[in-house]
């Protein structure tokens, strides 16, 4: 049925899906190609004849059909306006049964031709109806016509990385629908304290883990007080954890990389919102200029202050975040995007009628990017980013700030089906300042340490990177190199980071994955704090040598299993948390150490969006440090970390899930002696007791329109429903529990 008032035209939509799987000449000789099923359109493909246009036209579209069957990028490769825009806009709303390889859905790129024929002025039939539909006859199926061979390629997650999509995370108990909160359930991730959004990744401390959103570095992912992530979950498409040996495009962090990709712009009006016990959030996006542009706004607002005032009237906890995005397709091959986001947190306490800020932080980013497609195989991006970070440092107390500007460029070129080049460069300048400590004792060593560690200065960092994806039959190998030049105050250092990743498809279901990489990083603080970074490259660059080897297996019933062993070496490492006997007393020192982390990870998973889905992740590891002649276990070494989750579709739009988390305790650190010789730390010390918790989730959804369109859901979720307490260095903490009751909705 066509939209009233709109002049519709019967048209024929030629949809070609001719998938040709190219696995490389040697493999083609060695064994038959994997079974591939191309995408299949669902429903009819109606494209309105653009108003004010005349004549006939043909538009050729290059369409990315995502693994979930929705349409991603749509490029009009040929065709005049306004037909090109009309075709692109309509195609963005098409739905497909996705392409599959051996039964596994994957993204595919297809070409489609849309032929427009000008309707006679008297007809007003729906575009999807063929001639004669006015008499009630069923429309004929679209004609399939070969246009050109198309290579189907799935862009896999980088070898060694773990990806989790938002749809899955919604069903993960304890994640509160937040993709970033699912990170602590992944193998290789060791929590510091349950509920705290900082963790060790394969032995690397929180300050060595980098967080990126669409390539833009952000200082932290979560709000204070065990709050939600700083980006509305609806804006996040996938989150990838690279625990080591990451692609060359990531650098300047010697631990792990958390990289989030925002959802593709969609021109049709859509959005979602939620109201929970502590906060509310919303996100909405729509198109303009006939679908060439999209505009998105989103954000979250907490009313924890109001709730806390009923419980602890002298304490205030506040957090907010916002996101905004504008995209505009200048031409079918050129897109301009403006992406802005920010977050704010505040903890304050009132005594005798005077409110004192205990902790405050904020960061803002403005990212302007230009994407250009040279052709079907080459894309480029040029972007400039501006940002501001500020934190109120507890214990000092003062504000520290950082203003930053970055320009970056990247290019991606598929030279053939076996060779793909990627490269880029960037330059970033950061201006660090700190207010004078207003009420301090000038003899206070801590204040002097702070000033020495965090001087006011300008940091300039430049880098270039490149890698090549080589598909040699069953073997995909990705060598890469990254060079970074660091300048902070009067100090300069160069980091040379070679990277190598390999994936061998031993059989169609068994893959062997290796990663290796060297990563450099400037000295880092305990945890990421906006506006605070150790200056002047004190102590020099940190270096991590990361390697892993693993096997990934696709099992029956849509299960995937991965077994990985890893071995990381950290040289000149900043890890105050991991080496200090009392991190609180030595927060403003930077003790360097030699570190090592070895272990094995097991990950068995079935998508949580299945009727019955779940996963089991287990990490066995040992993380050690050496300072001088002393060799000991890292303060946050946990031998065993395990998570198990299961989600059920109970029918009638009820979904339930539970997650069980268990990990062994950290080593008990003997307190620092009062004299010169502190008691030695052992490689086999006593430990805190094991901690476990159970998270629960229950959802009931109602669809307000069919097929599954607008919806509203009631969700109850509890992290640590068992109210189990945790022990850290002999001190019992908690129970830290986060209950959430709320209503969510989307359209």
């Amino acid at each position, binding site marked *: 049925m066509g939209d009233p008032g709109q002049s519709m035209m019967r048209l024929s939509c030629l949809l070609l899906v001719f998938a040709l799987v190219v696995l490389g000449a040697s493999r083609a000789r060695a064994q038959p190609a994997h079974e591939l099923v191309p995408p299949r359109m669902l429903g009819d493909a109606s494209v309105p004849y653009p108003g004010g246009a005349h004549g006939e036209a043909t538009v050729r579209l290059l369409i990315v059909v995502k693994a979930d069957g929705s349409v991603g990028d749509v490029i009009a490769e040929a065709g005049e306006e306004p037909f090109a825009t009309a075709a692109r806009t309509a195609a963005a709303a098409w739905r497909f049964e996705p392409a599959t390889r051996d039964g596994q859905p994957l993204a595919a790129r297809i070409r489609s031709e849309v032929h427009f024929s000008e309707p006679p002025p008297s007809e007003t039939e729906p575009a999807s109806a063929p001639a004669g539909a006015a008499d009630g006859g069923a429309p004929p199926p679209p004609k399939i016509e070969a246009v050109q061979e198309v290579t189907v390629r799935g862009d896999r997650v980088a070898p060694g990385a773990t990806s989790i999509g938002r749809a899955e995370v919604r069903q993960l108990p304890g994640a509160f629908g937040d993709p970033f909160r699912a990170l602590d359930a992944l193998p290789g991730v060791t929590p510091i304290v349950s509920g705290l959004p900082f963790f060790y990744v394969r032995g690397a401390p929180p300050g060595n883990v980098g967080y990126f959103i669409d390539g833009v570095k952000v200082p932290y992912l979560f709000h204070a007080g065990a709050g939600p992530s700083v980006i509305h979950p609806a804006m996040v498409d996938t989150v990838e954890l690279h625990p080591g040996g990451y692609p060359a495009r990531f650098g300047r962090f010697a631990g792990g990389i958390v990289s989030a990709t925002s959802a593709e712009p969609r021109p049709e009006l859509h959005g979602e919102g939620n109201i929970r016990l502590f906060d509310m959030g919303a996100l909405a996006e729509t198109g303009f200029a006939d679908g060439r542009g999209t505009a998105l706004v989103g954000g979250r607002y907490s009313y924890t202050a109001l709730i806390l005032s009923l419980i602890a009237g002298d304490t205030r906890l506040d957090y907010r975040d916002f996101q905004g995005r504008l995209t505009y397709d200048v031409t079918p091959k050129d897109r301009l995007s403006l992406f*802005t986001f920010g977050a704010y947190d505040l903890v304050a306490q009132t005594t*005798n009628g*005077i409110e*004192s800020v205990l902790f405050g932080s904020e960061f803002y980013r403005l990212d302007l990017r230009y994407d250009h497609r040279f052709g079907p195989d080459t894309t480029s991006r040029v972007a400039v980013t501006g940002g501001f970070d500020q934190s109120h440092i507890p*214990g000092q107390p003062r504000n520290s700030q950082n203003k930053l500007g970055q320009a970056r460029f990247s290019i991606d070129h598929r030279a053939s089906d076996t060779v793909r080049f990627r490269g880029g460069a960037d330059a970033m300048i950061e201006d660090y300042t700190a207010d*004078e400590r207003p*009420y301090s004792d000038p003899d206070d060593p801590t204040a002097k340490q702070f000033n020495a560690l965090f001087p006011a200065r300008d940091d300039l960092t430049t880098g270039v990177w490149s890698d090549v994806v080589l598909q040699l039959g069953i073997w995909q190998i990705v060598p890469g190199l990254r060079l970074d030049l660091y300048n902070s105050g009067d100090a300069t250092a160069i980091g040379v980071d070679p990277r190598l990743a390999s994936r061998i498809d031993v059989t169609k279901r068994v893959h062997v994955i290796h990663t290796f990489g060297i990563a450099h990083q400037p000295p880092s603080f305990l945890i990421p704090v906006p506006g605070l970074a150790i200056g002047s490259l004190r102590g020099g660059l940190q270096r991590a040598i990361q390697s892993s080897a693993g096997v990934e297996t696709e099992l029956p019933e849509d299960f995937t299993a991965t077994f990985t062993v890893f071995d990381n070496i950290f040289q000149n490492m900043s890890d105050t948390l991991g080496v200090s006997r009392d991190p609180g007393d030595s927060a403003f020192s930077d003790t360097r150490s030699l570190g090592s982390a070895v272990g094995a990870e097991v990950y068995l998973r079935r998508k949580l969006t299945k009727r019955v889905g779940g996963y089991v992740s287990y990490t066995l590891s040992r993380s050690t440090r050496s300072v001088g002649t002393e060799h000991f276990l890292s303060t946050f070494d946990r031998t065993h970390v395990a998570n198990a989750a299961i989600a059920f579709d109970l029918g009638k739009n009820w979904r339930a899930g539970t997650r069980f988390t268990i990990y062994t305790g950290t080593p008990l650190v003997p307190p620092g002696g009062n004299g010169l010789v502190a008691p030695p730390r052992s490689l086999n010390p006593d430990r805190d007791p094991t901690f476990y918790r159970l998270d629960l989730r229950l959802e009931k959804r109602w669809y307000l329109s069919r097929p599954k369109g607008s919806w509203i859901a009631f969700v109850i979720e509890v992290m640590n429903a068992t109210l189990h307490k945790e022990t850290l260095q002999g001190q019992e903490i908690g129970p830290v529990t986060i209950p959430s009751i709320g209503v969510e909705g989307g359209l």
Partner: protein
Amino acid sequence: MRTRPFFCLTAPLALAYACVPADTRPPPGTLTMTVSPSGALDGGVTSADGWTITFDRVLVALGNTGFSDSCTVYGEADYDRIIDLGAGNGQKLGILHGLGQCDLRFRVAAPDDQTVLGANVTEDDRQAMRIPLTDPYELQTGSQTGAGASFDIAATATRAGVTKHFHFVYRRRVRYQRCTPDAPPADASIAALAQAAAFSDSGAAVDLHENEEVTYDLRIEPEGLFRDDVNPTSAALRFDPFAAADTNGDGTITLDEIRAVPITTIRDAGAIEASTYEVDDAGLLRRGQPVVIETLGDFVYELLAPTLVRFRDVGWCVGSASGRRGPG
């Protein structure tokens, strides 16, 4: 004091922005804590039994001065300093900023590598005080590595041509709070006063107003080691029991020697059980394990040593020593 960035004022989504606020609190009062020696450092003191006691050198490591939660805290002096009492009166200990009625807290504790050196104190002094050694009384952990020195008192006593030396090193960490500027009444039981102070509502050792500057002094009385009573108001100084402890006659009195002297040489009533106080994780005082005082050494180490610090000349504070009595 804090900059309000340009972004805060021009952000396109102003409703969602909320910048970390500037400091709008009223200006605080300033409290300067100082340390002074008692008059005994200047020419010595004469005991009731005729000994002239002089002090060769007295070092004390103390600091970590702060306020209780009952007032608005703007800034504290969370660091320690080694004070040489021979360097004079009014030596700076720390500067604090706050508003309202506050209880004060501070501590004596063995120094670390961040401890600030006071006048006439050298790095060698700090390193010497950091050396962990054991004695029968200091804090013992499972590692048995000992502790550094909180007090290091070297005294010499002479009478009728006889000279005795007494070098006392105290290795416990003592936290002080609930300070009062009033001297304890002569007939009062310190134990009863301490109990009353420990479990009352938080005292107001200082009342700070906007822009007010106040200086409070801690007076260290090393001669307090020779008191015959814990109440300094009513106690007399007696050195005879110490002299008598020098059983090997080498002129140097050791801690082990005074531990061999029965308490009856000081107190006719004999052995007593003394209350102790501990500070829990919330910073509150609570009753600790009582200690049995049987010898002169017990009396000096467990009861007298923590009372050497006086608040504002004649006042006193409730002290809670960490650790327990060790074997021996």
